[in-house]
């Protein structure tokens, strides 16, 4: 960790995200397709929020709207500590991981991670890049190109790319979707210390209910399209989270409850 960088991020506490009347309708082939019903949402500074919901309910769209990659329909707005998302992106304080790893095929794993530092206007810190790649289990693959990595490995490289800039707002869209179950469990425990805390506000989309409960302070359950938030559940498990908590009563209750809300309780228990 370079001195400059620590000073910069440590100097600015995690931001609060405020979504007001955010709705999104896409122009469909025949008629307009409403993806998100109007929703108001506040992500508290430094919180980790998980978003669960059926496929196509607009989770990814909401993420993209918060990042400012997509604009909400007229009348809606997103403010990050009062700023427009674009300003936050310009300052290099936002990072987003997509469902596809979206690595540049002509750069090595390390090159892809280092690129984020350059794009965010931060000095490239090769030791930090190597350390993060090690943390996501890619030690020894620094020089490999994306085509030589498996889907799960590419996704882990993309997570390292997100974390390398020490973002203040971290948006993760199914970050572990292609990661194998064993590695996934390990990452679920080892990575959160990197992003929870005083400096980062995190929003994460996941299909795994246990993962949502394990990672988040708060789980938002969305309805089918057009998506709206049907439940807002505080997790209330102590941090740092540990594997043992997977078997606590609070944990299983929450998983059951979310499963019931989504109408997939058997599936959810199977995952736990």
């Amino acid at each position, binding site marked *: 960790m370079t001195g400059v960088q620590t000073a910069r991020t440590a100097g600015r506490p995690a931001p609060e995200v405020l979504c007001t009347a955010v709705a999104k309708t896409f*122009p469909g082939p025949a008629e307009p397709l409403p993806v998100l019903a109007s929703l108001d949402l506040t992500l508290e500074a430094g919180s980790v929020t998980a978003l669960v919901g059926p496929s196509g309910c607009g989770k990814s769209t909401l993420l*993209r709207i918060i*990042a400012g*990659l997509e604009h909400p329909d007229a009348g809606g707005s997103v403010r990050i500590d009062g700023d427009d998302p*674009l300003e936050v*992106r*310009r300052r*290099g304080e*936002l*990072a*987003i991981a*997509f*469902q*596809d790893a*979206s*690595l*540049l*095929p*002509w750069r090595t794993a390390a090159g892809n991670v280092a*690129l*984020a530092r350059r*794009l*965010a206007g931060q000095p490239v810190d090769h030791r930090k890049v190597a350390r993060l790649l090690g943390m996501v289990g890619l030690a020894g693959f620094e020089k490999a*190109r*994306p*085509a*030589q*990595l*498996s*889907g799960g490995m590419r996704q882990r490289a993309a997570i390292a*790319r997100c974390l390398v*800039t020490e973002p203040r707002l971290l948006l993760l869209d199914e970050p572990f979707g292609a990661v194998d179950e064993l590695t996934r469990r390990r990452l679920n425990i080892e990575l959160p210390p990197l992003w929870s805390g005083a400096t980062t506000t995190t929003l994460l989309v996941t299909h795994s209910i246990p993962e949502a409960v394990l990672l988040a302070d708060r789980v938002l359950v969305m309805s089918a399209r057009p998506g709206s938030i049907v439940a807002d559940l505080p997790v209330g498990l102590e941090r740092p989270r540990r594997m043992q908590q997977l078997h606590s009563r609070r944990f299983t209750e929450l998983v059951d409850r979310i499963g019931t809300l989504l109408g997939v309780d058997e599936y959810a228990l199977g995952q736990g």
Partner: protein
Amino acid sequence: MVLQGEQAVQATGRDGDGPRPARARPAAALRVLLGWVLVIGLWELVGRTVLADRHLIGVPSGILGTLVENADVYGRGLWFTTREAMIGYLAGNVAAVALALLVVLLPGLERTVLRLALVVYCLPLVALGPLLRLAYGFGDGPQVTLAALAVYYLTLVPLLVGMRAVPRSWLDLTATYGRGRWTTLVTVRARAALPYLMAGLQASVPAAFLGALVGEFTGAERGIGVLSIQALRSLDTDGLWALMILSAVVSMIGYVLVSFIARRLAPEQPTVLLATPGADPRRPAWRRWLVSAGGVALTAAIVLLAWAGLFWLLDLNPYFAKRPWDVWEWLVSAPTAAEHRAELFTAASQTALVAVPGYFAGLALGVLLAAAFSLSARVRRALTPVAVALRCVPIIAIAPLLVAALGRGSFGTAVVVALMTFFPTLVSCLYGLGRLPGQVADVFAAYATPRTRVLVLGRLPAMAPAFFAAARIAAPTALLAATVAEWLATGTGLGNMMAVDAATSRYTSLWSTVVVVTLMALAGYALVEAVERRVLAVVAPEQSRW
């Protein structure tokens, strides 16, 4: 390699700039109309004032007048040329499909068939025109043959890519049920290759015109090309423009027609570009060299055998249909061989001195302009249709015009070469710049990266496969353009030498020149391909699977 076809296709398949919903606004239509009126008015003005004596620009009123006046003659000429192009187009594409089927069913033949196909593609059409005329006698035969020759390679290459660009899992599906190559071909490959076939069929429409026109430039009795030469001789600039516009319009109509059918049959866009099958990098270098050298030797042997055998079978008159040994004697064993070699070398260096700078200028201009387009979405949206329209124009049609305008020096020839290289490069690069996957573009957006930086770090590397596909095909084309221009005008270089040889019946010299030009074109192609391999190995490793 861990990456499988499916992912590669997905990764390259997403377009950075999706189609925008059409906005029908009468005001916009009016503005477009006004723009056109303004452009044509300006054209007329410039043509009548600044450039009036340059024989460069025909003015709209004059062109229209010529068209009306010569409607009968031009109409008949256009019909002949179109018919030649159409028959050649059909024949060339049928040949391409047949070759592709052969290669898919007998994969062992692939390298050899592709090499032979390339040799035939690199033959100098300019010299083949008069030679074919001697073989066929009076008629459209030579033009049709040249059109077919200009067409088939442009269809064959994407078709082969399409047959291979099938996700591994689809192939596994037929394999799971124990089915063989034939079932796979019918159920999977044929359909998967359809968009690629269609892309090839589109690209080869203007090529068919190019072949027919080159045939007409080099001594046919009738057609647009013949009328162009007459207009060129009589400095009839308006006539030249009118003829160029006519062939462009017909070629465009053909292109639109094929596009329409393509959209009906295979609405999806082909996703992977025209990388030729790569050498297996796991083999040691010396073995790869040995294999390529063996392949080249084998190809040379087959070409020589086919050359001699075909002439023998067809019982062609040895007076004009020279055999390999005649060329050998002319260039190597005859007492005057050194003179012949010197003559050829002089002409070849003259041509190279014009063609090489023209080629690189065309490439550079194409990339630069495409990059400039990509920085502004508005400019891109406005100019992409123009670029696409230019893709379906047989650029060779403007060769007489440029020769007339820029004088009979090497500059005019270089401009023809540059233009022939520039347009396909521009179109291909514009396509390639959009190849940056949407989510990768989003990664840049997540850091609010400025456009110029996205261009350098993302779009230009993503464009490389498209650029090289254009550059590779353009290498033989550049030589063709140079020799056509030289044939028409300059009095120097290989083109002129072939024209003189054909006119004075120096057929052994002509055949020797054919051999040399073909070798030059092959060398150019191979050089570009070597650079391409190096670059794509870094920039687009997923392409090397094919």
